[in-house]
């Protein structure tokens, strides 16, 4: 049985992620304690809100270093995924840097509605166990104004004006820009896949 720890980085969706895991039969603990986080089999960094306060909150508790050094599977959700990259344009914030790339605001184009809010299709870019059972064109629920471009670590992309990273993975670090906890059965499948890593 997975021993999952949710890191409280101030995101309001932490409860929703916890409930989604409960629906999969996993009781996840919430913790900000480095010892407890290091001892977990799987670590999830949920997040809703802005990059700068999110990183500040991690740094305040020394959790930025703790997360960088983790060797077990780590999943960043929404803002949590953005924090895995090197830098975010939001508040000009240095992030964790465990996945190469930068996070930028969607183009300020009159025809492009921002936040990107709603159900959008996943386009599968690379084979990975994290995407097992997920099919080309499956839908996920997104709510965000910033995104990372596609790149070598992108397993699945989505499109809003231009393609952006929807699922990333570098070694043990995984990220989902959408909300798996709110993406119906596709989201449940992705969380299950993460727990099987």
């Amino acid at each position, binding site marked *: 049985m997975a021993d999952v720890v949710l890191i409280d980085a101030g995101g309001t969706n932490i409860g929703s992620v916890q409930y989604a895991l409960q629906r999969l039969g996993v009781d996840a603990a919430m913790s900000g304690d480095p010892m407890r986080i290091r001892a977990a089999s799987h670590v999830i960094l949920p997040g809703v809100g802005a990059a700068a306060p999110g990183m500040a909150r991690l740094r305040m508790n020394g959790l930025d270093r703790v997360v960088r050094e983790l060797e077990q599977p780590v999943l960043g959700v929404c803002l949590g995924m953005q924090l895995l990259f090197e830098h975010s344009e939001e508040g000009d914030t240095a992030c964790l840097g465990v996945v190469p790339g930068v996070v930028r605001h969607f183009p300020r184009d009159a025809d492009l*509605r921002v936040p990107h809010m709603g*159900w959008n299709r996943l386009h599968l870019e690379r084979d990975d166990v994290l995407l097992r059972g997920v099919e080309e064109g499956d839908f996920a629920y997104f709510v965000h104004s910033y995104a990372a471009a596609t790149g070598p670590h992108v397993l699945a992309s989505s499109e809003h004006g231009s393609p952006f990273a929807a699922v990333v993975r570098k070694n043990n670090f995984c990220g989902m820009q959408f909300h798996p906890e709110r993406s119906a*059965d596709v*989201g449940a499948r992705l969380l299950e896949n993460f727990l099987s890593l």
Partner: protein
Amino acid sequence: MLTRRIIPCLDVRDGQVVKGVRFRDHVVMGGIVELALRYRDAGADELVFYDITASPEGRRVDRDWVERVARVLDIPFCVAGGIRSVGDAREVLYAGADKVSVNSPALERPDLIDELSVAFGVQCVVVGIDSLRDEDGCWRVRQYSGDPDRTRALPRDTLDWVREAQQRGAGEIVLNCMGSDGVRDGYDIEQLARVREICSVPLVASGGAGAVRHFVEVFREAGVDAALAASVFHAGDIAIPDLKRQLAEQGVPVRESGRRG
């Protein structure tokens, strides 16, 4: 491509879902969790729970049912009604709601929108606007529309308020066109299209859905991002899988409904 959303709105009173016409004469429809799951299974993209008594009576949204919904529901949901402060919003968001919607309290104190967007991010902040066309042809905002005896017209121009709400940090606007609400004669395409022109955040149409063609019209002609409706879904007049199939046939991008096997 981002799909257009279908959002059933569930009016909640005393922990149960109720329905009424033109905000009056409410009858109990059933349990919140049961109805939420039924709409999820039918392919609803999102749900809005509106505590219809909370705002006029100054009551707070009861957190218990929000958490019960969040535990079982795996699609996003928004809670409206009775959110007057960052503290109120925090309670609802931490209980598992994805967004909060503010209406009358934001008119009383517009700074509320700024405070909510700073505290939680614009993506959590929905501003609901009740709007009605006055005899001079201008659309103006109504306040306390949850209670017909307290509803009052404001001098505030709807378009001005839509602009201001966005500047203050609204991440989504729900425009409830009161002239068409509850009469099932179609959405107010003219008003929604006008608001769409000045709205850079997602715009949700509300008020007037009575037939499938009304949804097709509002997406194609007013360009809204989502359509909210209550009675046509609650009464079973429109089944969401059928609605989505017809929208897709008419070229409106929608999430294929129903559960994947």
